[in-house]
């Protein structure tokens, strides 16, 4: 059976790199990997989504409704948007920090990240929910760009990446990023205490 992971957020948050890292880790272990990315116009502040499928029996790179084992959400409203993809009893890891679209600021119709996380907490679809205070996390790690690694580290530490372990992810990151960024990314991957 394949492990299906949805990564979602707002264009520019680093979902693509996180998805590539999991893929690299899976390939190092000899698994087949397929994924699909949002590239182009939609990247510019729009909703973005990566489909990631690990396992020999994935015949298409894309995930259908009710098929995801895990959703890693970089923005709470985007996590809620992607919830239909989750399998009953699947896991969700999400940032609680809302990224307001310009349209919301213009209309003065801001939403709260906590409205979204409250909804997730009450959802009986979700088997396991991890909410990460990413604002605190990136402050602690010292780089706003580290959010993707913080969330990915939370997923791997919680053992939610199928047969891909936390060590596999750290290993893959070391191979993928420039030497000067290894320490920062290691700290980010280790940040969430699960």
């Amino acid at each position, binding site marked *: 059976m394949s492990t299906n992971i949805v990564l979602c957020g*707002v*264009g*520019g948050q680093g979902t693509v790199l996180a998805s*590539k890292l999991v*893929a*690299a880790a899976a*390939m190092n272990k000899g698994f*087949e*990997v*397929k*994924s*699909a*990315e*949002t*590239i*182009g*116009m*939609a*990247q*510019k*502040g*729009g*909703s973005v989504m990566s489909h990631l499928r690990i396992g020999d*029996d*994935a*015949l*298409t*790179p*894309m*995930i*259908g*409704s*009710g*098929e995801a084992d895990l959703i890693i959400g970089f923005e709470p*409203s985007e996590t*809620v*948007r992607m*919830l*239909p993809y989750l399998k*009953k009893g699947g896991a969700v890891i999400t940032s609680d920090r809302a*990224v*307001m*679209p*310009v*349209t*919301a*600021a*213009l209309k*003065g119709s*801001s*939403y709260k990240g906590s*409205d*979204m996380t409250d*909804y997730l907490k009450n*959802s*009986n*679809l979700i088997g396991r929910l991890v909410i990460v205070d990413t604002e605190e996390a990136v402050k602690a790690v010292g780089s*706003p760009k580290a959010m993707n690694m913080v969330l990915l580290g939370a997923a791997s530490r919680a053992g939610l990446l199928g047969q891909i372990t936390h060590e596999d992810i750290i290993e893959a990151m070391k191979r993928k990023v420039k030497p000067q960024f290894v320490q920062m990314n290691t700290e980010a991957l280790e940040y969430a205490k699960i």
Partner: protein
Amino acid sequence: MHKEFMMGNEAIAMGAVAAGVNLVAGYPGTPSTEVLETVAKANDGSIYVEWSVNEKAAMELAAGAAYSGARTLVTMKQVGLNVASDPLMSLEYVGVKGGMVILVADDPGPISSQTEQDTRTFAMFSKVPCFDPTSAQEAYEMIGEAFDYSEKYNTPVFFRPTTRVCHAYASVEVKDERDYYYNRPEGFVKDSSRWVIFPKLSNKNHALIEKRNRELQEVFSSYSRNAFIKGSCRKGIAANGISFAHTLETIKDKEEKPSVLKIATPFPFPEALAVEFLKANDEVLCIEELDPVIERELIFVCGKYGLNTKIRGKLTDDIALSGENSRDDVTGYISKLMGWEMKASEISSDAPELPVRPPVLCAGCPHRASFYAVKKAMKGRDTIFAGDIGCYTLGNAMPLDMVDTCLCMGAGVNIAQGVGRIRPDTKTFSFVGDSTFFASAITGVVNAVYNGADTTIVILDNSTTAMTGHQPHPGTGKTMMGEINSRIDIEAVLRGVGVQTVERINPLELDNAVECVKKTADKPGVKAIIFESPCAMLFKPKKAAAVNHDKCIDCRKCIKEIGCPGLVIQDSKVVVDSSLCNGCGLCSKICPVAAIEL
């Protein structure tokens, strides 16, 4: 052989490299761009790679090289093919010597395009054979086969993946370098009876092309990429591309399986294979995106052979007429055909309202300042703002609302003239980016000067082709072979074609920019303003701005005027999102009480 994790576009590129491609030319366009970039990255110097000024130039360059025996690859998105269609239509009559593959990426949705045109239909119109891969792995292998067919039949061929094949990643089994094919072109051999198109040659070759395509129908019926996968009942699915992959996924665990016809060469259509498939089924559903190409072919085959298999699809409203086929769509279509029960959604109906997230100009984008300067300068005047293709199409969003029209690459300069011809009192403006200017707006400027138009051309020069991921262009002087040539100066081009008034100004110097627009727009004739400021993604951001809440009067003018994503409301106060802000300072110049500090 070894495995690599690759994007579909990377697989296509590496497949072409492994097939001995000698020359690659293209123009950037989502979802095709990464193909050429990948070849450039993998290039050991033996392949000539260029971003051409536009698709027509790329097609002609590749034709010349293919006449000379080179294996050539041309890359573009589907609308780019419209630009290149003039050389293409004639090239099919002339033919090639070296293999020539025209990669045209189609974009169902459309996700990042103006149209949902189908290159398979263009293949029929132009009589050019077409290859349509279903996955990254297949694309890697198929492009080498496309080169072989092209050479064998002396014709250019289309290779048309769609977005979901181009931008999918997979662990792809690729050749080791020692197994690559190398092609040594012999060079151009003069033969005017072959390379010069005249009515007599066209008449002769037209008949030959029709006969060749009939022969290819037979050849493609036994081409292994076209397949009839037998099922366990008398219902069938005909599919291509990503819809084929989705179909296999949907039926993989089912006991009762429909048979599947996989179409990898929509033109010429593998007729004999289709007959075999149709005879085995009473009812067939065609699952494809864009045009009902397979569906029409199957109906034709039924008529030709007197078969009474029922053909369903877009023409019978069983499949959506537009947009892409998602996994859920395909599962729904097949379930309906087979009478399978669908799982109901488990999502509760009390979900909170979710924000809409249309794409916007980035925080710190200099286009925002350019649009705002023109808007301020022309406030209260009768104006038309013709837009064009690029990031700056996003200038249409509220609150800027500065793009009244957008049609195709380079159209804005002429559209503005057309509007002005009907109402001469309207102040006409066109906005065009630097890359689009070189690609196809220069002729519009010449047209304006020649015909004595009264219009202002605003060039948004951010020193790159930003929308597609920062490709170089003639104004940057950098080439894909790593050379630095002399930059082509936009002002010199404009003056050279007779534009008398040309202003260059940094749009982030807002007051000067507004004055400049006011002064320039009221001059008679054709005039140009070049707003020069590099794309915000090209440099390290300056210190983020911050709102001094002791001074802020909460008028929200900053948000209402420019709609920068870096300005957000938190706990009922305007704050700067420091992870997005790059310190461009535009908002600080708009604040009436100087509360935004840099």
